[in-house]
Every structure is written in structure tokens, then in C-alpha cells.
């Protein structure tokens, strides 16, 4: 199987969100070890691309949840509560991007600004 085909297959699997038993058996039987590794890599990258992880502290309001839903209409949103890391606010991870609305990030930015300017 060509790399391009493997990539397309991984995209399809990630989009549909499921894989039948027959297909998985076929994959295990016909793909080489290297191809399997590449398939898993592509699949995890695609899942990452289609999923938005929202890490928050405390309980986000419905308004915030709605806003996030509007921002990422066709993506799956996973909410993870992490009071210790986030402190206050929300951190959104999608694909290989991070949008940091947390208080800790703001403090880091202020500290950096003070160091640069004073």
C-alpha cells in the first residue's frame, strides 16, 4: 500500500470515528510493520486535528461552552478539568496549536514584559 493511500485511509477512519472488524483484520494481515506504524501515526495526527481539547479549572459556564462550540463547529470537543495546571481560565488545544486563556499564561506574559521593559 502506498503512503498516500495509507494517509487517505487514516483520514477516512478518523472522520467516521470507527473501523469495522473486517477492515481491521485486513489491515493486520496485509500491512507491513512499517506501514502499520505509519498508519497509526497518520491516524493519531488526524484525530488530533479533528479534536479540540479544552482544559479548564473550575466549571465553565454554558456561555463559554457555547462560544467554544461556535469556534469549532465541525470538531469534537473534549473537556478536561485540571485545576492544578490551569489555575483559572481555559486552554484550548487543536491540531498543533494552543490558544491559552489561562491566568498562569497571563502572569508569565506580564513577568516577561516586566523583564523586557524595566
Amino acid at each position: 500500500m502506498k503512503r498516500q493511500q495509507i494517509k487517505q485511509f487514516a483520514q477516512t477512519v478518523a472522520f467516521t470515528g470507527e473501523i469495522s472488524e473486517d477492515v481491521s483484520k485486513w489491515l493486520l494481515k496485509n500491512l507491513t510493520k512499517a506501514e502499520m506504524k505509519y498508519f497509526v501515526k497518520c491516524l493519531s495526527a488526524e484525530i488530533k486535528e479533528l479534536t479540540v481539547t479544552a482544559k479548564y479549572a473550575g466549571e465553565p459556564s454554558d456561555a463559554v461552552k457555547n462560544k467554544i462550540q461556535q469556534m469549532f463547529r465541525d470538531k469534537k470537543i473534549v473537556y478536561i478539568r485540571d485545576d492544578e495546571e490551569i489555575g483559572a481560565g481555559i486552554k484550548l488545544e487543536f491540531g498543533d496549536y494552543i490558544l491559552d486563556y489561562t491566568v498562569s499564561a497571563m502572569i508569565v506574559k506580564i513577568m516577561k514584559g516586566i523583564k523586557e521593559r524595566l
Partner: protein
Amino acid sequence: MKPEELIKQIEEKLYSVDINPELINYGIVETVGDGIVKATGLSSAGYGEEVEFENKAKGLVLNLDEDAVYIVLLSEDEITRGMKVSTTGKILGINVSDKLIGRVINPMCAPLDEKELKIDDGKLYPFEKIAAGIIERSPVDRPIKTGIKAIDSMIPIGRGQRELIIGDRNTGKTAIAVDTIINQKKLDLGLKRVICIYCAIGQKRSNIASIVARLKETGAMDYTVVVSATASDPASMQYVAPFAACAIGEYFMEKGEDVLVVYDDLTKHAWAYRQLSLLLRKPAGREAYPGDIFYLHSRLLERAVRLSDKNGGGTLTALPIIETQGNDVSAYIPTNVISITDGQIYLEGDLFNAGVRPALNVGLSVSRVGGAAQTKPMKQLAGPVRLELSQFRELQSFAQFGSDLDDETLKKINRGKVLTEILKQPQYNPYDEASEIIAIYSATSGCLDDVPVEKVMEIEKKIIDFIKLNNKDLISKISENKKIDTVVLEELKKAISEFKKTLI
């Protein structure tokens, strides 16, 4: 300042801090080894972009693959698999200010001279920059005096020129560059001061230490910046070092200053780039160098420029150094750099061993800017030197026949020998313009034809001292950067004869 005013100023500065959330593009470290990091993600990373790891270590993106980005580490911090790395949106650069003058730094602007370096008024200059176009440039027409008679008379270097210094190891390449830096202390001929940048690439620490000590001893560090990436530094540091030196040079040049950058040496720079390229799995070409090795040096040296007055009139002169193996100038890197530069100073091991120092091969050395970058008196008097030396070289093979030669030929051979002696010069002893003119004129005018060859250097020095002591008017006349008329030449000849009388 009152405390209230201080508080107000601090508040104003703090309010100007941008605390809006930003979109960070990140990646995950997959593999680390030999100073190269392979990371996935980083979809918006660009070639040559600076990236930052979780532990604040810095890296440079040097290869973009379909699924991964290859990063070259710029520090020796520990990077582990799974670590996050994020883009900065910045091209790698150096924070430059006037405070760098007199300092020894590494390419990332960290001081190496055990003194604190805090640049708060600095300007960020990118390592990679497109060179000035033809409209922004002016022709090179002002000299940069090396203080070396042989170079100033036959291979003049102009401000904004790229002149290659090439030769085997231990032939005096660095000595020429260091002498040129030392000579910039002399502000004669009404020329502007020159800020010098010495960039050491892949050299031993001890060599750099001795060069810095020499520059300090001669007072040259007052206008010099030393950028050092030693052989013990990572290849990535050696790769960025000349670009950092060039960026520093551009800062001063854009302020209208004249700048001299010495790249010592680009052979080791090519080796460092080859090492990085092979680790980055770039396809290897001739002698295992990557295909863009020519572009690497051409884009660096193309940044040497003389800006037009409209653009500030600053200049950046480049003196790259190339080390050859077994006098082979036709090797890959030497031919590349020869074709990029505006001339070369070719130094030969045999000449060096025969005591001809600087060991200049007059036949193969050339400056493509030529007389345009020479002072008027030097241009007028040094004209016959090259011709007489080439005639001497041709006739030298007949010298072994001795008495069989006619008088005219013997005279030419003798003149050639005197000229060769006159052009010898000890290290760290740059001449001023007047001394150079007196030395060259005394040889070309035939005033030294009756002096035994082994005594020429000694007599030359005495003549210069004699004229400087007794004919100050004459010295000021020949130092004026005006064409020397016959009256002054007669005066000079007379002064030399007067000196010769004192010898009898």
C-alpha cells in the same frame, strides 16, 4: 526624579505589556541526537525560523519534511523525547548595539570575555537578510588601508569590496587580516573610522585568545567586535557565526559607518554546514557538501556593500579567509569563494618558507576593484611595481647564468630583488600611507639599486625615519591624497640622496 514620576513611568511601561492570549504553534520532539531534533507538529514553522523548547532552549529550523521538522540546537541544554517545542514567528537574529564594540561574544550574543553584557537599547538584526540591490549601492571608490605595502600598492582593497585571503595553513592569512584591523587605528587621508568585526569559525580557543590579546595590546579592541565559535562549539554555532558577524556589521553600516568583517575561515564554516546537512539527511553532493554550499557563501558575501549616500553611505567590507590543501586553489570551496569575491590575496607556503612575508603570490593575487580603490599618490607611484615584478619573475630563471646576461637584464633582475625585499614586512607592523609611498618610490625610482639586497629592509626603515624627522613638510604633502607633482617627487628623491650621503 521624584518617586511619583518613577512610579508613573513604571506604570506606563507595565500597561503597555500585551497580555492578550496568542495562538501558539507547537510540536513534539520525536528524536534527539547529534544536536539535531526531529519534531512533529509545528505546521506553521518556516525555514530559518527560531523555535523555543519547553526548557527555554533555542533551536533553528533547517529542514522541513512532509511529516516532521528538523531543528538544529543552538545550545547544549538537555532536550528529551516528548518535550514541547513552539514557533516564535521570528527569524533567528542578534540583538545589536554600540555596547558590542570591544567585546568578545558568541553568535548568540553571550559574552565570552568574563564581563557582563546587558543590551537594553539594542536592535534585533536577522542573521539572514537579502543583500542590498544595485539601486541602493554606489561604486567602490574609497580604499581600506591594510598598512601592508604589497597589498596597498598592488592589490588595493576598497570599502565595500569582498577580497578573499587564500592559502595553505601557516602562510600568514590571519596575520594579514589582523594587521588590517590594527591599521584601522590610523585615521589618515581624511577617511572615516572603520568598525572591525573579527569572526572566528572553528578555530582553537588558544588562537582566538592570542588574537584578542594582540588586538587589546595594540588598542584595536576599541573599535573591534570579536564573534567567536570555536572548534569545541557545536556545528550549529559555527554555522551561524559568520551570519551573526554580518548582522552586527550591517547594524553599524546602516548607521553610516564603515565596517570591516573578517571571516576566519569559511573552509571550516563549509565543514560545519556539511556536518549539519548530513545530519539533516540533505542529499550529499561533491565532496559530500550539500547542493546549496555555493548559495551559503554567496548570500553571505553578497551582503558586503557600499551603500549610496541616499542610503546613509555606510560600507561593509568582507575579508573571507579560505584554507587550501597543498596549494590547490582548484578545490571545490576555494573555487566557489574565488568566483564570489572581487579578488583574492593568494599566499604561498614556499614563499613563506623562503622568508618572503607576507608570502604574496603577485601573479595569482588580484583585486577586481583595482585602482579605483587606491589613493591618488599610491596609484601614481605603485603602477610600475607589478610590471617590474612580473618582468623580474620571467627573467629570474636566467639569473643562474650570471655574467652571460646583458646589463639591461641584470638591472631588471636587481630591481626585482630590491622590490621583493621592499615588499617584505614584519607582522603587526602596518605602515602609514607616507611610509608606504617613500618605501615604494625609493625602490621604483632606482634609489636603492646600489644597496646590497640583504640591507634593503634596514636602509628602507632608516630612509623613512630620516625623512619623517627632517622633512615634515614633504610627509604632509605626500599624505594629502592628491597626485604628487614632479617638484615633490624631486624633493623626495633629494631627501633620499641626502640620507644616502649620511651613510658614507
